[in-house]
């Protein structure tokens, strides 16, 4: 199914604009992530698509060729995975998964067969008869997914599906979810505030901030070609190099850098992995922090810009705290972006 939103906005009765007029289309079978910090309107957008929130007048939501804007959630045929999973504590795993099918008034035998099929798919057979309270977080997450997918919805909507899990589990379940979603071969939208999650699961990411979609693109596009300082900062944690640009030279506190283009009126961004520590670097700074992260060190350097900048250092040994070091940044790794306009 394809999804098309035109001019979709949400203003709360108290005047808060949770979502500014938004256009969004999602292709058939595409997995799109809505990524943004909390309060950016991503969950509101998802709930509008689900039918759990009523958008402002003038908004239109199209599922293929059906205008579903006036339909309530129960008639939109969407599968929803909630942040808290919202599993029914009064029902077993099997009954939870079968509930949507029961609502479609399918014959008992077919419900049984379809539930078994979904249980197999999500590797939940051993837990089928269990009570919801007897499941671990990861198992609950799978049951929530299985329950949403069992009635064969037109579209799957996931609201922070992994955020209720602890960090170690989140990593493995992320990959698992990415595989399962592709196996289901279903159009899916999922909301997250975690850029790694969005990158790992989605075909396309829509970065949101202050109630608007700032940029949509594949994870690679967003990482390599952010169109705004916010996207650069949020996706891949780019750091701004605050200094004075003069032609193609940027003067920083710790030395001068060559820019790939004229830099007046622009903000210059760089990522930690492109900040190289080496004797021949034109910038000089002082090591503030050294964090050992297994495959690499993360080094905080002060004195180059007013803020501390980070460097990913892959050597066998790292400089010590307090050392003065030289730093090089290749011009082609610098990102010049229009200066941040206050979007709030």
């Amino acid at each position, binding site marked *: 199914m394809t999804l098309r939103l035109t001019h979709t906005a949400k203003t709360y009765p108290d005047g808060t604009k949770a979502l500014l007029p938004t256009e969004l289309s999602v292709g058939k079978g595409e997995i799109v992530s809505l990524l943004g910090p909390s309060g950016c309107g991503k969950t509101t957008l998802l709930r509008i698509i689900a039918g759990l929130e009523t958008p402002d007048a003038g908004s239109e939501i199209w599922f293929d060729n059906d205008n579903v804007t006036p339909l309530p959630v*129960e008639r939109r045929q969407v599968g929803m995975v909630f942040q808290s999973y*919202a599993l*029914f*504590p009064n029902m077993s795993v099997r009954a939870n998964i079968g509930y949507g099918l029961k609502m479609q008034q399918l014959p008992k035998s077919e419900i049984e067969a379809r539930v078994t099929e979904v249980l197999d798919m999500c590797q939940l057979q051993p837990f089928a008869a269990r009570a919801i309270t007897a499941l671990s977080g990861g198992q609950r997450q799978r049951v929530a997914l299985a*329950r949403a997918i069992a009635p064969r919805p037109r579209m799957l909507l996931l609201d922070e599906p992994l955020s209720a899990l602890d960090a170690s589990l989140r990593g493995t379940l992320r990959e698992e979810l990415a595989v399962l979603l592709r196996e289901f071969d279903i159009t899916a939208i999922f909301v997250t505030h975690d850029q790694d999650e969005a990158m790992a699961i989605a075909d396309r990411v829509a970065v949101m901030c202050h109630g608007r979609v700032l940029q949509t693109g594949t994870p690679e596009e967003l990482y390599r070609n952010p169109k705004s300082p916010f996207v650069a900062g949020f996706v891949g944690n780019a750091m701004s190099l605050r200094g004075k640009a003069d032609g193609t030279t940027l003067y920083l506190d710790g030395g001068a850098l060559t820019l790939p283009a004229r830099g007046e009126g622009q903000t210059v961004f760089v990522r930690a992995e492109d900040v190289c520590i080496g004797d021949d670097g034109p910038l000089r700074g002082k090591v503030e922090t050294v964090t050992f992260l297994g495959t690499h060190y993360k080094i905080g350097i002060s004195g180059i810009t007013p803020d501390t900048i980070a460097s990913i250092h892959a050597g066998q040994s790292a400089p010590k705290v307090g050392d003065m070091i030289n730093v090089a940044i290749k011009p082609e790794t610098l990102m010049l972006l229009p200066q941040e306009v206050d979007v709030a």
Partner: protein
Amino acid sequence: MFKSKVKIMQLAVTLLACAFLFVPIIMSVLAGLTANYFKGISSGLTFKWVIEVWELYANSIFLSMWLAIACLVCTLIIGLPAAYGLARHPGWLSRLLEEFISLPLAIPGLALALALLQLYGSMKGFRASWTFILVGHVLYTLPFMVRSILAVLASIDLKTLEEGAASLGASPWQRFRDIVVPNAMPGILAGSLTVVTLSIGEFNLTWMLHTPYLKTLPVGLADSYASMRLEIASAYTLVFFVLIVPLLMAMQWASARAQRITQ
């Protein structure tokens, strides 16, 4: 166990308190089973008085049971949707309504009865019918039902659960039936037992509202104390006990269970 003086003190106080509670009960029950109270136990034990109570007051017993069941049905029909509505729309208006429903708890039953009499006393058919007492009982027990269900509903994320059911295609009625009611069940059970127990034991209101032809169990008890032999009144107490104690125990069990879920 009896090593320290503190322990002995604790035991003594506990036993004294128990004696204070149990001795009158035992005395009363024994009086109901003694052939002649003034001669004491030596006159022999008998069920004569219990049988006599049954013959005299069977109607009161049945009326009380009938009232309790009718009262339960009414409080369920009113209380469940009310608690659901209050739980789904939290806010100052809901708080206010909840307090309003709870008013009969704070107002003496006599005052409530007086108000009912003033308002409906002239409607002869209604005034003389058992439904008049029922109205009083419903007013008095409704807050217990509403609060009991509300406590359980407030402890679960009802809104998200319902949204979950809605996303699976459940209509509002189906959500109420499949999600709200089963999850509120511990509260409904605890509330129901409380309502039945209170309705059977209610005296203040009922005494004001009853007619000579409509005596409930506690009103009958007062009547027997006032106009019968002490043995009959005591036997009546025994009957009352047999009816109410199992209910009380079930109520304890149910509210303990509801509380476990609330935590």
